[in-house]
């Protein structure tokens, strides 16, 4: 009897010891976390028609990185005044734009450029900013934080601030092993890569789940065609710069940048020439995605057009010639071009209206309401 009791005690001791060890190990890993590798973002998915994409090998998409990036994106401590976050100029409800002609940051001075939509950034031109001066999302991420007119934050001061926050210490540790400028940039880039808009009416149409109205379908056909009067093909000329599924600029080399005739030679901005130094790139700006374009007014790199109707009017009969104007825009016309005739698409009012009807099918209400992209500091109430 005593032997059985001793044996039972012995087994109990082993079980308790193992349980304690497991508990201690779990606790060590939980609190220390440096032994756990970050978790690959298994649920990430994108439509087949968007095509290939690349995630940098040194910044894989992980649950931890995206969680950290989302928090940083919405944290006003990223600005010198602790009053502005990335989300100040990139508002989810506006497809991550801000509704302003050009952004206004820490200095209160209007910036040179309209806030770009942050949508489907894994595809399209892999150079960022309207003039393409950042070669990756990681290279882009810190520039607005440091810029005195934007968020005006000293990066060393930011890191010091983050190190005082126990939650950030854990989040950085889990995602990147340390708090650093590189980790801030990588985390922001990771979150931005997850901002995929793929459930607009156009997406549903592409998946065969819905039909477009007659106006939308007419607009789609015009969007997808360069006009050719020789074969009686009328076109809105949009696809020459905006790809058929992504509606973004092209990803190859600098093919996703264009001079779309906003200004005549003497007023032409530098654009891509700032990045390449090539005079042939003067006046060329990044072709943005048109996903959610209904929500991203005002339009163009300097926000000069308040409505889509103004945009269509520009492309129809407002083009200003310059040396680097796209030949595709200069040549496109739905009528026989006369001698010395101004550049004009000569679309009808109905055609312009129908192209806008198609553009509105690019609105993705799920995207702008997706809780995974929302401010994590706000506790939603039912």
């Amino acid at each position, binding site marked *: 009897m005593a032997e059985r009791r001793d044996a039972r005690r012995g087994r109990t001791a082993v079980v308790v010891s193992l349980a304690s060890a497991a508990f201690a190990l779990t606790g060590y890993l939980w609190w220390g976390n440096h032994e756990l590798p970050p978790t690959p973002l298994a649920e990430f998915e994108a439509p087949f*028609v*968007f*095509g*290939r994409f690349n995630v940098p090998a040194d910044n894989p998409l992980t649950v931890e990185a995206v969680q950290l990036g989302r928090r940083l994106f919405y944290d006003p401590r990223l600005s010198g005044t602790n009053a502005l976050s990335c989300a100040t100029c990139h508002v989810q409800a506006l497809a991550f734009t801000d509704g302003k002609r050009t952004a206004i940051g820490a200095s209160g001075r209007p910036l040179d450029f309209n806030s770009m939509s942050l949508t489907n950034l894994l*595809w*399209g031109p892999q150079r960022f900013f309207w003039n393409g001066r950042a070669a990756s999302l990681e290279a882009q991420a810190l520039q607005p934080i440091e810029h005195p007119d934007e968020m005006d934050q000293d990066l060393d001061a930011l890191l010091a601030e983050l190190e005082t926050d126990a939650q950030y210490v854990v989040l950085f540790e889990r995602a990147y092993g340390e708090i650093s400028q590189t980790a801030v940039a990588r985390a922001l880039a990771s979150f931005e890569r997850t901002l995929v808009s793929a459930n607009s009416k156009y997406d549903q149409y592409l998946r065969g789940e819905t039909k477009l109205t007659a106006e939308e379908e007419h607009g789609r056909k015009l969007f*997808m*065609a*360069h006009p*050719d009067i*020789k*074969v009686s*093909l009328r076109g809105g000329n949009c*696809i020459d710069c905006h*790809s*058929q*599924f*992504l509606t*973004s600029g*092209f*990803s*190859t*080399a600098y*093919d996703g940048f264009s001079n779309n005739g906003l200004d005549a030679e003497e007023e032409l901005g530098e654009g891509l020439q700032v990045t390449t130094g090539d005079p*042939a790139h003067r006046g060329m700006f990044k072709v943005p995605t048109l996903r959610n374009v209904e929500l991203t007014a005002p339009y163009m790199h300097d926000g000069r057009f308040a409505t889509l109707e103004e945009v269509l009017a520009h492309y129809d009969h407002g083009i200003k010639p310059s040396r680097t104007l*796209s*030949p*595709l825009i*200069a*040549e496109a016309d739905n009528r026989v071009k006369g001698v*010395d005739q101004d550049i004009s698409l000569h679309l009808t009012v109905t055609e312009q209206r129908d192209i806008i009807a198609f553009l509105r099918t690019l609105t993705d209400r799920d995207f702008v309401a997706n809780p995974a992209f929302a401010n994590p500091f706000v506790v939603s109430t039912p």
Partner: protein
Amino acid sequence: MNGRTKVALGVAALLAVVLALLWYRDVSRPGSLTLEFRARSDGGPLVLNEFAYDNPGGAGRVKVRDFQFFVSNVRLGGAAGQFVEPDSYHLLRFDNAERAFTIQLTGVPRLEYDYLEFLVGVDADANASIRAVGDLDPNGRMAWNWEVGYKFVLFEGGLLVDDVQIPLVYHVGFDASARRVRFDLGTLFADAPDERRMFDVDVMRLFDGETPIDMQALSNVKFDRDDARRIASNFSRLIEYMPPAS
């Protein structure tokens, strides 16, 4: 035969076996063939963004702003066998400092080939698909739309005539436009497993066939099939093989 002779013969035999094995390993190793395409016109490297070339069939000077084209279905063939490059869709472009583009064929069996062959353009199956294979990209600049397929050759630029600039847009596609071209590269892999062969690409030859084209009269080619055929008839003149100096 004394002991020393036996040892010497043994060592010689062993050496022969080792050398034979090394030779076999070398000749059985697949080769690689680099095809280098250099854009050249008027006897020099392609000049972009300047009115650098004569209008072959009319007045004015021509500016090349963008020039890209597809090469697909690259293969080496001959009596001894053939090598077919997998996923063989290449978008050749020359807007780099070297004005050059290379295609590298790897894992090529070192056989005697009679010719190198490829399409200038895209084969009909791939042209009707939205699968992204090789350099094919349905969201790319060369895609018209999924109902029409790809542009095979893209030339965009301008023509300056009497101080007036005329936009030039040549987007040449359609299945019927693709042209199969073939080159005799001579003996490959005779001396080494890695070979490089050079080709000159002259964009202006697209307009300088049997009947030179006046680029003012035909300043754009898009969806008109007769116009596309006219340019495509010069696809086979676009690329010239430049044999290595013997």
